Structures are given as structure tokens and as C-alpha cells.
């Protein structure tokens, strides 16, 4: 199982092929396609798709407006509930949200393509910088938003709309959070994440400072002193451990770090890619890193997941996407040992089964996979440094506890997105948290 050196190198495929592989995975609908698809919407009463949407977009309403060629009105219907309706149209797992709820499934097993219609309605807004939202009269209040990701920006936009002045403290070099640094590149091409951020900020009243980290450059106490309210949309900065020996061996990498590099690379063919890539995990991140590795030219990509297909965080569509891209998914397998002295050369897997209580048990049966790179995609957790900073805020299982209005246990502090206990790692949920928090903050500031 040993090799002279890890086979990790750039340019496994030429630049043109990589560009083709990273083109828009769901190309936008033409007007004809959109009109025909919109015609399939039944305009349901109390529509199940709207109920299934975490942000509660009036889906039949916006589709009706597409039918009548009222695209700007349609976009407004979408964006007034979800200011990131453009990104969500691209990255939402619609097959487990609105499109799963579509009654067309009962009728003909083929839902209305809501995600694509949403993109059709919203794309022109970002292309033309169409102004759809006005700010209310200035309230004289200021709010600090920590985190420039979907939760933070959604909160900031709604607060700005409601007349408050917002300062966003963003850790990264660019705003956008996982929209900019996470998410498979072929789901959001042409720098859409930044165009969306620009649109959000264009409402005015939002100042953003990049490269500012909570607990390092600024403290929560300072923010509480200086602002009328604080919103934490700080995400989960650390990656969970595999819990096996030699976890820091070269070749073992965090999937999210590699995805971030991939998103920022101008020429993706220059990224080093392993010949044999093993991904540990069963969520969207696992699929994203596996498929992208394959599309960058990895010879062989294996996903290892310790439970079955039903338990995977990745939707059935995503699982199929991996498989049709030539990725092998090993269910009921877990890594128990890495091979290699100076760098990873392989990984030993053990078969697992679920016992009567649903707990994972090793069977003792093992399998070796060659690996030049082993990606960890087994979930994230709050940054170590923040745990101290969040003193006074109730945490549970390493995440922030919030109530229905996204309020934390600390007065004047709200939170949303992946860092809160109810988070489900979806952009759309983060947007909803930010919106709900902004409405609650507004209510409090005006009371």
C-alpha cells in the first residue's frame, strides 16, 4: 500500500476542459421554457411549496407573475421574503423543499421546476441592478452584524430596509460567507455571489468591514456597548475531527478549505488534485468536494459514509449527481486508520452496521482504499476562540441556542445561520434567520 510519493498535481485536465466541467450545472431557462414551465403551476390554495420554503416565498404568486410577463413583480415577490432568492434558486436542495412538496408529484411525478423559475425571475434584477426596495425613514438606531454570510447579510438588508443603520463585521476578505467560499463552483458561476452582495448593499445604510474577527479584532462586549443591538451570523469555523490516529498527516485536508480555494481560483486547472481521492462524510459538502475533485481530473473518487443512503445529509439528487459524475459512494463504512508515514497513501475502512438503537457498530470487516488525498467533510463546529467570547450566551451541542425570534439568552444579541442550534446548513434557512431576527430587533428598538 505504499507509493514513492503522493500523486497530487495540477493540470490533470486542460484549462478548457476544466472550464467546461465548471460551467453552470443548471443553465437558466429561456423565456419560452419559463412560460411553458410556469403554465404547469396549479396555483394551489395554501400552497405546499410555500409551506416547504424556509423563507415562505409566495411561490404560486411569483410563478403567476412569470406567466403574465411581470418579471419585475415576480422578482419582488421572491426577494421581499428572501433577499438571496437569486442564490437560493441556484443552491437550494429544491428536491427536498419546495419541489418535493409540489402537488404535481402526486399527479405526474414531475414537480414544477420552481428553482429554475425563481432564477428566471430574479436574474434580471441582478443583471440590471433593478431597485426593488426602499429604506424606511431613518430610525436613528444602529445595529452590529457579525458575519457577512447569508444570515448576516439578510439581517443587514432587512434592518436597513426598516430604517436602521447597520455595520457588518466580516471575517473574510470578501463578504458572502459560504455563498462566496463554500458551495460547488458549478452551482454559482460568473461571480454571482458578489453580484448578489453588491445588490444587497445597494439599498444603502449598510457599512461593511472585511477582515475583522470577533474575539480577535473586536469583542462582543464592545459591540453591545456601541450598538443598539447585535446579530451574530458567525457560522461554524472549525471542522470536526475524524477521531483516528495521524489525523494531521499531510494529505488529510478539510473539504471546506479546498472548496474555498476552488471558489477563489481564477484558473481552476492550476489547483493541485489527487489521483485517488477519498471523502469522508455524507452531506452536501462531501458531494461538492467529491464531484468537484472528479471534475478537476481526479482518477478515482470515493465517498465513505458510516450510515446508509437514507441517512445521508445530501439529497437523493445530490447522491445521484455524485454517482453520475463517476464518484463511488460506500455506505456503512468508516475510516479506522490512515496509511502512510510522511503523507497519506491510503485509508483502512471498517464496515459498520446500525444496532437496535440506531447506534453505529463496527463489524470488524475492513477494506483498504488507496488515497492521495483524504477530505474530511463530517461537519463543522464553532471556532474555539469564540467559545470564550460567547460567554453568557447559552450553547448546546456547541451551537448557540435561540428562541423563535432568533434571540439568544443574552439581552440585545440575536443569532442565526449555521452557528445556531436550529441551523440546518442551508443558505435559505440562514436567510430566514437573518430576516426573522431583523424584524424582532426592529420591534425591540421601536418599543
Amino acid at each position, binding site marked *: 500500500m505504499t507509493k514513492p510519493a503522493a500523486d497530487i498535481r495540477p493540470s490533470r485536465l486542460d484549462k478548457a476542459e476544466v472550464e467546461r466541467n465548471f460551467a453552470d450545472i443548471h443553465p437558466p431557462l429561456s423565456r419560452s421554457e419559463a412560460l411553458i414551465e410556469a403554465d404547469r403551476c396549479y*396555483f*394551489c*390554495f395554501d400552497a405546499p411549496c410555500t409551506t416547504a420554503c424556509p423563507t415562505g416565498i409566495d411561490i404560486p404568486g411569483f410563478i403567476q407573475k412569470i406567466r403574465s410577463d411581470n418579471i419585475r413583480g415576480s422578482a419582488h415577490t421572491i426577494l421581499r421574503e428572501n433577499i438571496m432568492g437569486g442564490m437560493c434558486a441556484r443552491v437550494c436542495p429544491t428536491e427536498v423543499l419546495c419541489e418535493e412538496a409540489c402537488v404535481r408529484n402526486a399527479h405526474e411525478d414531475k414537480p414544477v421546476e420552481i428553482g429554475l423559475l425563481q432564477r428566471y425571475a430574479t436574474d434580471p434584477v441582478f443583471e440590471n441592478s433593478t431597485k426593488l426596495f426602499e429604506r424606511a425613514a431613518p430610525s436613528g438606531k444602529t445595529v452590529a452584524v457579525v458575519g457577512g454570510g447569508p444570515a448576516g447579510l439578510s439581517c443587514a438588508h432587512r434592518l436597513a430596509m426598516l430604517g436602521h443603520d447597520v455595520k457588518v463585521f466580516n471575517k473574510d476578505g470578501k463578504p458572502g460567507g459560504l455563498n462566496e467560499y463554500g458551495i460547488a463552483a458549478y452551482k454559482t458561476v460568473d461571480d454571482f455571489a458578489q453580484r448578489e452582495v453588491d445588490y444587497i448593499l445597494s439599498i444603502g445604510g449598510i457599512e461593511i468591514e472585511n477582515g475583522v474577527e470577533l474575539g480577535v479584532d473586536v469583542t462582543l462586549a464592545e459591540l453591545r456597548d456601541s450598538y443598539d443591538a447585535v446579530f451574530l451570523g458567525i457560522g461554524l469555523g472549525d471542522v470536526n475531527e475524524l477521531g483516528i490516529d495521524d489525523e494531521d498527516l499531510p494529505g488529510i485536508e478539510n473539504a471546506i478549505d479546498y472548496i474555498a480555494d476552488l471558489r477563489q481560483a481564477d484558473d481552476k486547472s492550476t489547483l493541485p488534485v489527487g489521483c485517488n481521492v477519498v471523502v469522508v462524510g455524507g452531506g452536501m459538502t462531501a458531494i461538492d468536494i467529491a464531484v468537484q475533485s472528479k471534475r478537476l481530473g481526479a482518477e478515482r473518487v470515493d465517498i465513505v459514509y458510516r450510515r446508509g443512503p437514507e441517512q445521508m445529509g445530501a439529497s437523493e439528487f445530490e447522491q445521484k449527481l455524485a454517482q453520475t459524475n463517476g464518484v463511488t459512494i460506500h455506505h456503512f463504512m468508516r475510516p479506522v486508520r490512515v496509511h502512510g508515514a510522511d503523507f497519506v497513501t491510503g485509508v483502512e475502512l471498517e464496515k459498520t452496521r446500525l444496532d437496535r438503537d440506531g447506534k453505529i457498530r463496527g463489524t470488524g470487516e475492513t477494506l483498504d482504499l488507496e488515497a492521495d488525498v483524504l477530505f474530511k467533510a463530517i461537519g463543522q463546529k464553532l471556532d474555539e476562540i469564540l467559545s470564550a467570547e460567547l460567554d453568557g450566551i447559552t450553547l448546546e451541542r456547541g451551537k448557540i441556542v435561540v428562541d423563535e425570534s432568533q434571540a439568544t439568552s443574552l439581552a440585545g444579541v440575536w443569532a442565526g445561520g449555521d452557528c445556531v442550534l436550529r441551523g440546518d446548513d442551508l443558505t435559505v434557512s440562514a436567510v430566514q434567520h437573518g430576516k426573522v431576527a431583523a424584524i424582532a430587533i426592529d420591534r425591540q428598538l421601536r418599543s
Partner: protein
Amino acid sequence: MADLTSDFLGIRSPNPFWLASAPPTDKAYNVNRAFEAGWGGAVWKTLGEDPHIVNVSGPRYSALHSNDRRVIGFNNIELITDRPLQTNLDEIRQIKRDWPDRALVVSVMLPMNEETWAKYVPMIEDTGADAFELNFGCPHGMSERGMGAAVGQVPEYIQMATEWCKKVASVPVIVKLTPNVTNIVPPAKAAKDGGADAVSLINTVNSIMRVNYDTLTMYPTTDGMGTHGGYCGEAVKPIALNMVAEIARHAETADIPISGIGGITDWRDAVDFLALGASNVQVCTAAMVYGFKIIDDLTDGLSTFLDDKGMQSVADLVGKAVPSVTDWQYLNLNYIEKAVIDQELCIKCGRCHIVCEDTSHQAITHTVNGERHFEVIDAECVGCNLCVSVCPVDSCITMQQLTDGTDPRTGLPISKEPGNWTTHPNNPMRKDA
């Protein structure tokens, strides 16, 4: 196989589908193609006096589309033939010689004086055409000149012109009626009184399709100005069916043969017209939207339908539904139906609920035991059929008759005895039973 051959006024054709007088029958080239495709007959596009009229060289047609651009309704401002009379006469003669088994009828439109009719009718008949169809229906352009619908809207003119034509014609005369009247029976009666052998209907309905949203002018226009056209296609079928049935069921017109026209697109539309009293049918818009090939579905579908019904020929079907058409006052007010939703078929879109809730009788649930569930509340349901009409799933909601017990809505026992408005106690004009 049922016999599709048709005998209309002694004019035989291999099937009851004729192309209506319209652009598809303007030239020998088109009519040849139609007969090659299998059409039973054609009514030649309307001939007028020489010198021939002229048409606009801009938009003559426009359509009402569904979102996937299926043509639902169709509008035209084309006038009668704009070719020299002799050209048409020569081509008609040639077509009739080439296709002796097909019906070839010539549509005519002439000014309201007898001499003109006396001059042109024999010339046209000399082509060997099987019959005349008098165009008293064209609603645009020609009506401004006192012809077309301008004649069809005045029963006395219909009778007069029909008489002039009958005086000199030895072949049958069909009078084509305009729907742009309040009651179709008097024009039909006038045609009959003038000696017409049959009526055909409907011609097109006055229409403006829409506005151009950029220019805020009507659409379409010719150099910025537009005029109303004639509306046809699937959307007008119900209007046509009513008029056909009115003529078929009224004693003074019941015996005049009818050639049914108006939105016939597939064979079921033809069944509608035939069962409501037409002896054959004419088609234009569907051919203009899909081409002549639709004749395959029309003939094959009708033949299969007749077989399934155990009918030997088209004649067996003609008029079958006419006895079921009556005045509202004779409907049985003691008859009670309730909607029933098949829960196996229901896809839970809730359209039935919201339309009943917002616009009718609040007779359909949306939640039962905390679950999304749509069910008819018999105590509120008046049996209006709205839910059936809007349900996207075929046969999911059906109307079922209550035959026993009491109507949960009124609390009254269900009467086995029919009772209509003529004897209803609320009717101040009631007749004693």
C-alpha cells in the same frame, strides 16, 4: 367500420368534413392539397363581383395563445377572394373535374340587387360546383359595404337575397349565418322562408384581440390603425353549438339541414356539432393552425367513436342530443347532485376549496383532523359543478345524484317527482299543476 360517407342535400362526400370558405380554399393549389390529404369537401373562398376586392398587405391574422402558444382563439380581417373571378371559375371547374367524389361548394357574396345575382349565379354554377353558400356572415370590411354580416343581421335581407339566388340557381343553396345577432332563430327562419336548402353556421364573431403594450394601440394594426376582425377557433365553439342547437330545436327551423361550423379542432368537436343537429361540419381554423393533416384524426376519431357507440353511419348520430336541450324553466328543480372528491385521485392542490370558499358556497374543507384534506360538505354544496370545472385531475371530482332521504343542505326530503319553475310556488307566473 362505421360508414363516414356523407350526403348533405344530395351532395355526396367521402366524409362529413368540409373545409370552410376561407383562406385554405382560395386557390386550386390549396384545395388539391386538401383533397389529397383526405378532406371530404371544400367550400371555395367567397367569390364577389369583378373587379375583385383587395386585401391589406399587413397583418390579417392574430391569435389568442395559451402560455405554451397553443392557439385558442383566432382573429382575421381578410376579405373575400382578391383574385379575378375568371381565375377562380377556371380553377373551380378544374378541381371539380379532377375530384368528382368530393363536395365542392362555392361561397358567394354579392350586392343587394337582383340583377347582380342573376348575372353571376349562372356563371358560377356553370363550373359544375355542387352548391352555393351565401356569405351573409363576414363581419369586417364587406359588411361596411352592405354585404356579409350587414345582410345576415337583417332577416328580411336574408330572405330577399336567398330568393334572388334560388330563382336562378338549379343546385342547392346554403345560407351561411352570422353569430353577431341576439337571436339566431329569425335569420335561420328567413333563410328557410327564402327557399334556402340549408343553413351553415357560425361565421366569425366581431373581435379585437388585444392592445399592443408598447404602443398602446390596438393589436395588430396596419400602419398604426386597426379594425375589428372576425373571431374563430376553439374559443368560439360553445357559441356556435348553442346557435346550432337553437335552430335544431325550434319548431319553425327544426327541419332545415345544418352545416356546423365553429372551432372544430378534433373529432370530439365534430361529435358535438353532429349530435346537436348539424348534418355535416366545416373546418377552417384548425387547418390554418396545424395544416390539412388533421383530417386523419377527424375521420379516424369519428369512425372509432361511431363504432364504439354501435352506430352504422354519421346520420345515426345527427341530432341525438337535440332533445336534451330545453329552456331553463323546464329543468327539474327537485333533482339534486352533490360533488364527491375521490381521495385516491386528489393531489391536494386545494383549487376546489379556494374557488368554493371565495366565490361560491363554502362547501369544501381544507383541513380535516389537522391534515390537508379536501372534502365536500354536503350541507353546503349546491351541486354547482365549479369544483369539477377547476380540478386539474380528470374525474377526481364527480357529481353524484342524491336519490333518497333528505338534502342535507335544505333539510327537505328528496322528491321523486320532477318539478320545474313553471309550477314552482315562488314563480308569480306559475301555472297550476
